[in-house]
């Protein structure tokens, strides 16, 4: 190759210069696609699509102290490009008629739905016989932790829970 060249060092200088240009342009293209691609991939995981909302369950006056009462709830959330309904039952329980605790009916073991069994005084999960008492604490079976609670408040005598949080 070198016999064609007037000066080998000049050729190497040009070769290095061109290699540098290719590297810079190639690197720029890779960055322009690569960096946005990271945001593109992680974006549904870090962006919240649905706003929080306070959902009214019912009057606190309807509760029997010490007795969990189930309130069905349903609200619409954005699931990607679809709007879907999320439904469930929230169990409200009060001891003094003023302060309310609202439990989710999702079992903390494997996410089956629990139901309050009045005759046994427990929340019963039909999947693996998990039981919780009226304070949400585990009484028996495999659940690893107490029932989850909704953030709740009482507005003008109506129990409200925070959904989409």
């Amino acid at each position, binding site marked *: 190759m070198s016999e064609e060249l007037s000066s080998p060092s000049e050729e190497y200088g040009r070769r290095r210069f061109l290699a540098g240009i290719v590297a810079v342009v190639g690197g720029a*293209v890779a960055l322009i*696609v690569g960096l946005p691609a990271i945001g593109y991939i992680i974006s549904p995981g870090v962006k919240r699509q649905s706003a929080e909302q306070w959902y009214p369950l019912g009057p606190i006056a309807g509760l029997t102290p010490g007795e969990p009462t189930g309130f069905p709830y349903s609200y619409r959330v954005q699931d990607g490009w679809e709007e879907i309904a999320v439904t469930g039952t929230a169990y409200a329980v009060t001891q003094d008629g003023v302060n309310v605790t609202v439990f989710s009916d999702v079992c903390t073991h494997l996410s089956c739905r629990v139901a309050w069994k009045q005759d046994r005084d427990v929340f019963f999960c039909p999947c693996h016989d998990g039981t919780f008492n009226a304070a949400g604490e585990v009484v028996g079976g495999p659940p690893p932790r107490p029932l989850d609670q909704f953030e709740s408040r009482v507005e003008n005598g109506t129990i409200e829970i925070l959904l989409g949080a």
Partner: protein
Amino acid sequence: MRVAEMPSAEPGRVESVFRWLDERLGLTTIYNTTLARYVPKTNWLYTLGSASTILVILQVITGMLLTIYYVPTPDHAYDSIQYIMNEVSFGWLIRGIHHWGATLLVLTVFLHMLRTFFVGAYKFPRELTWLTGVGLLAVVMLLGFSGYLLPWNQRAYWATQVGTSIIGAVPAVGPLLLRIARGGDEIGAVTLARFFGLHIWWLPIALLGIIGVHIYLVIRIGITAPPERDE
């Protein structure tokens, strides 16, 4: 590349790692045969092949990114693209690159073919380079056509209506071919699904495979110089 010739006393850490890899992978040999080739004196038109290759790589990467959100059913195709454009971070950019890259790819591939034709580079011994190039042009056109339906908007629907109707003009077997292309009498869910499968599996793999043969031939036989005036 000159590493082997230099009896340097103390190789640096990077250099010793490179030497270790080179000895086992033959990196220098790969570099010398693929990139440090003898190339005749050419002009900028000879870069169209490389430009097409770069665009194909971009199309593959942005296309793979698009499949993360795109859903090829009549119920979701349009909405999932709206989601990409409006909700996903940089979704507009990724789809934009794929959209405009496709148009640009058809252009560079076509110009690449014209250059090859006008300098007579298709002649012996490069007939197979030319023939695989013709195959690549066909695959690129089919990729463009199948991808055009996927947004599932009015333009996509009616363009595919017209495009597939052309197949129906074939004598005798035309109506049958049309039904096979559409997967039924009308453009619908089956059409969208098969165009999607064609667009993301069959055609890209065919494209990359033929590109491999094409580039192998370019490396093996080399490229031509532009013909002299008196030739």
